[in-house]
């Protein structure tokens, strides 16, 4: 079992519930301006606390840090267990950062400020919950609970005509996947009970009990259902275009920026089910899906005339990269996949922000009706280029580091994976630059108003903040890598060591069977 470092005081609980308390505090308020300021204050405080958390985090250790544990439902071995390690630590400040930007960008939301800000803060709590939960049921609670504010955000503040369908689809699809995931969790717990006579949903306790390979495969696919719908992994993505295009920009930013599904692979599938995760068939299927997602997403993105739809498919393509890195099953791949998740939180979110700014100005993001925007709004065009280049993976930006590590990992796994992956990068450059050229240069588009306002100070602030992070990770990624390395190494070791545990287990089973030939494995 992994070592645990307990926190002196419940920093994670504070991080977890601060936004929720903030949301509750908005309830009695009457003044919209006050509400916005309070929401921003809470979001900034959350960001500050999460930065403190990251600074206090001991890098170079694979231990679970800031651990807090309280018994919740002892009859089923469910506890309120929070902790962060190198895998989850970076997501906490990232989510807080994105939320702050979303609050700022939603300043002129118009009607319904109170429910919007409350939903947004509630959403932040659930996302934090997903990243800091160590107990699987607690994880699941936040995983599901996220759908409620998400539903309202898409439905009430969506910009598209079909936002009703989009919201419903988002909830039902994700729910469909996650119920299977819950079965997977229950099977793990029951297996734990068979071995130790005690139920447990605690990640660390479950990791200590090896699961037979056959069971691992079943559980892997059950959990995969939940993760694949949420991520979404190609071909489980059909809710994503609707949710991201019909929903409000804030929700699109969060859904595209916070990679919960792929985080789940690193957090749950790999440590709990190392044998299934490294199983040949599983790796083949997952890598196949990843490559298909990279190519298909990029090709479909190439054909889009709506910038937001383009971004949706680009985000599916990028998610393919993450999965490719993770299932390369070596240190570089895992590290690259994890870093790329963080990067997407900056670049994909950034591009969606800019798409939102465009939408605010033009009322659409269709390329045929744009053109020559660079002349009218130079700041917007500049930031779009910078963030877009980061998304393609230009050296010097954050995207390069992540994609480079992923491709390194993929080439180590098999040259073919690497080759297909590289072609994805080329496609990414093609669809982005082509769109950029058509929208930003050339003659002025048909619907572009004569007096187009460039980014105002709030919007520029958001873009600058994103660019700072982009170049920081791009030029000096080592502090981040140092924070994640020990935990990633631990996962990589576990993935390769898993086979040893399996062999030991098989040996035991064999001698067991020899001892009492007629009896099955009882308890």
């Amino acid at each position, binding site marked *: 079992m992994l070592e645990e470092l307990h926190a002196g005081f419940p920093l994670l609980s504070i991080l977890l519930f601060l936004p929720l308390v903030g949301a509750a505090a908005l309830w009695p308020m009457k003044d919209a301006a006050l509400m916005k300021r309070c929401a921003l204050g809470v979001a900034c405080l959350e960001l500050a606390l999460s930065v403190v958390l990251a600074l206090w985090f001991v890098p170079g250790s694979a231990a679970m840090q800031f651990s807090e544990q309280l*018994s*919740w*439902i*002892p*009859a*089923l071995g469910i506890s309120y267990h929070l902790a962060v390690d190198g895998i989850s630590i970076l997501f906490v400040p990232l989510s807080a950062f994105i939320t702050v930007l979303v609050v700022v960008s939603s300043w002129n939301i118009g009607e319904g400020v109170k429910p919007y800000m409350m939903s947004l803060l509630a959403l932040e709590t659930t996302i934090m919950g997903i990243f800091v939960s160590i107990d699987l*049921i607690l994880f*699941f*609670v*936040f995983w*599901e*609970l996220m*759908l*409620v504010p998400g*539903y*309202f955000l898409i*439905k*009430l503040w969506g910009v598209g005509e079909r936002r*009703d369908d989009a919201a*419903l689809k988002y*909830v*039902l699809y994700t*729910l*469909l996947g996650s*119920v*299977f995931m*819950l*079965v997977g969790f*229950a*099977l793990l*717990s*029951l*297996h734990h009970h*068979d071995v130790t006579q005690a139920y447990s949903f605690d990640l660390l306790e479950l990791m200590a009990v090896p699961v*037979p*390979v*056959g*069971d691992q495969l*079943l559980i892997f696919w059950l959990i995969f259902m939940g993760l694949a719908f949420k991520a979404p992994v190609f071909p489980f993505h059909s809710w994503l275009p609707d949710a991201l295009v019909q929903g409000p920009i804030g929700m699109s930013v969060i859904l595209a920026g916070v990679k919960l599904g792929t985080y789940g692979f690193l957090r749950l599938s790999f440590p709990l089910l190392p044998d299934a995760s490294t199983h040949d068939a599983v790796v083949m299927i997952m890598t196949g899906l990843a490559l298909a997602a990279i190519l298909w997403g990029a090709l479909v993105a190439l054909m889009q005339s709506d910038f937001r739809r383009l971004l949706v498919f680009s985000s599916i393509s990028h998610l393919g990269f993450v999965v490719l890195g993770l299932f390369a099953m070596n240190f570089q791949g895992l590290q690259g996949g994890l870093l790329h998740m963080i990067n997407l939180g900056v670049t994909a979110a950034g591009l969606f922000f800019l798409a939102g700014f465009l939408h605010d100005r033009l009322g659409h993001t269709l390329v045929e009706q744009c053109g020559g925007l660079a002349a009218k709004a130079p700041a917007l065009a500049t930031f779009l280029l910078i963030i877009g280049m980061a998304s393609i993976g230009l050296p010097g930006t954050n995207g390069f580091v992540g994609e480079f590590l992923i491709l390194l990992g993929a080439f180590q796994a098999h040259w073919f994976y690497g080759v297909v992956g590289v072609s994805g990068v080329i496609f990414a450059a093609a669809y982005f630059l082509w769109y950029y050229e058509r929208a930003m240069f050339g003659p002025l588009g048909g619907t572009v108003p004569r007096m187009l306002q460039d980014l105002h100070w709030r919007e520029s602030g958001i873009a600058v903040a994103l660019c700072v992070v982009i170049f920081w990770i791009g030029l000096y990624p080592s502090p981040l890598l140092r924070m994640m390395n020990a935990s990633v190494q631990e996962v990589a070791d576990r993935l390769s060591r898993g086979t040893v545990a399996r062999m030991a*287990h098989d040996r035991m*089973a064999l001698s*067991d*069977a020899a001892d009492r030939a007629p009896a*099955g*494995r*009882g*308890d």
Partner: protein
Amino acid sequence: MTFNLTLSGADLLLLAPEIFLTVWLCVVLAVDCARQQIKHETLAYLSMGGVVAALIMLIGFDYADVHGALLNDTFVLDGVAIFFKIFILLATALVLLISIEYVRSFRFFRGEYYFLVVMSALGMMFMASAQDLLSVFVTLEFSTFGFYVLVAYLREDRKSNEAGLKFFILGVFAAGLLAYGISLVYGETGTLVFSEMTGMPGSYGLAIGFIMIFAALGFKLGAVPFHSWIPDTYQGAPTPVTAFLSIAPKGAAMAILIRMFYVALATFKPMWVLLFVVASIVSMTYGNIVAIAQKNIKRLLAYSGIAQIGNVMIGLAAGTKRGTDAILFYLLTYLFANLGAFAVVVGVSRRIHSDEIEDYNGLNRRSPFLAAAMLLFLLSLAGVPPLAGFIGKLYIFVAAIQQELYTLLIVGLVNIVISMYYYLIVVKKMYINEPADPTPLTVSTPLKTAIVISIAGTLLLGLYPGPFINWAVDAGLMFSNAATMAGDVSVPIAPAGG
């Protein structure tokens, strides 16, 4: 078989809550007759006083572990009985609270309304204690009797009359089935007491007899295919009565079902497990799919109730101690969410005189409290964490997984997704659509109290379920041998690895 009907004082203690409530009922009735001018609220609070007193008595029994059997073992007070009695009285108290405002709309207020509610509750308390077929019959009819009157209580309303008639005819039919089934079982086994039937050899007569009894109890539960009375009756009956009907008789009938199948039919477990797997699948799927098309909120809740009973039966299909634990806990979560939802329906319909889902448009604008409460209850019914319904569903699915009932499990999981769809439709109407008439709705204090209690229950059972799960586990201790019953060995979760 000899009957010994002498009772000692200690024996009477076991019956104390029932005796107390009977006396109290007479007092309520007498007060109503003697003082014509009495306000109906006074009567309501008087009835509620009795119910709460009995509730406290039973909670005391639970703490003091007062157990025993009397009247020749026809009346038993054990953990399960106490659990279900508390369950029924809790539901009754909430229903009385919900009723207070609703009863005002009766053109001629008749004091027997409260009397009848508590009388039905009394009947169901006896049901929870029945452990032989004769007392099953008597107590079941006793409890249904009050409902026959209550369902048709809105004399001027044709829908209520229709509901009453349907309920009566099908109820009597079920009673006939029950009596016939009992006679067959008695003919085959020569006994009426569950514990004496354990280990009896199987025969067609016994099978048919028990299937008939199951059908009669299925009628109470509202499980498919015995559900046909439910939508019309729920729609036509006065809403507090619907609320009562939707929860209390289900609990009481479940108590009898558990006793009957876990004790009398323990040796036939592989057969009845199949029965419950099928009944559960059919109820869940039918209830959820038909609920999608409903335009009336009471009908929607009626079908959702059919589906929920399907969920509860997953526990019976598991057929283990964990199964009963899950059932008891699940029913508790269902109690609060379901009664809460009906309380909101009462609150809305009293103001706008409609139960159409269309008329819930923009409820959030008109009463944020009612809309938020309804949202919470619907999410709990759908099983969204961390509300009560989630823990209930989790527990019941764990019981099913343990028994490797994968088909049932997958059907159950898909049904959760389907149910989410129609619950969300209501949520959408409440929060997204514009109200036709934006005047704010007010909620009376008793109703608000009932809703707040339900909210508290839904949150508490979700966030801090430990003590309640322990209670359910302790209540069902008598079934702990269930795990070692025929056809049930603990096996690894999948064939591989061994």
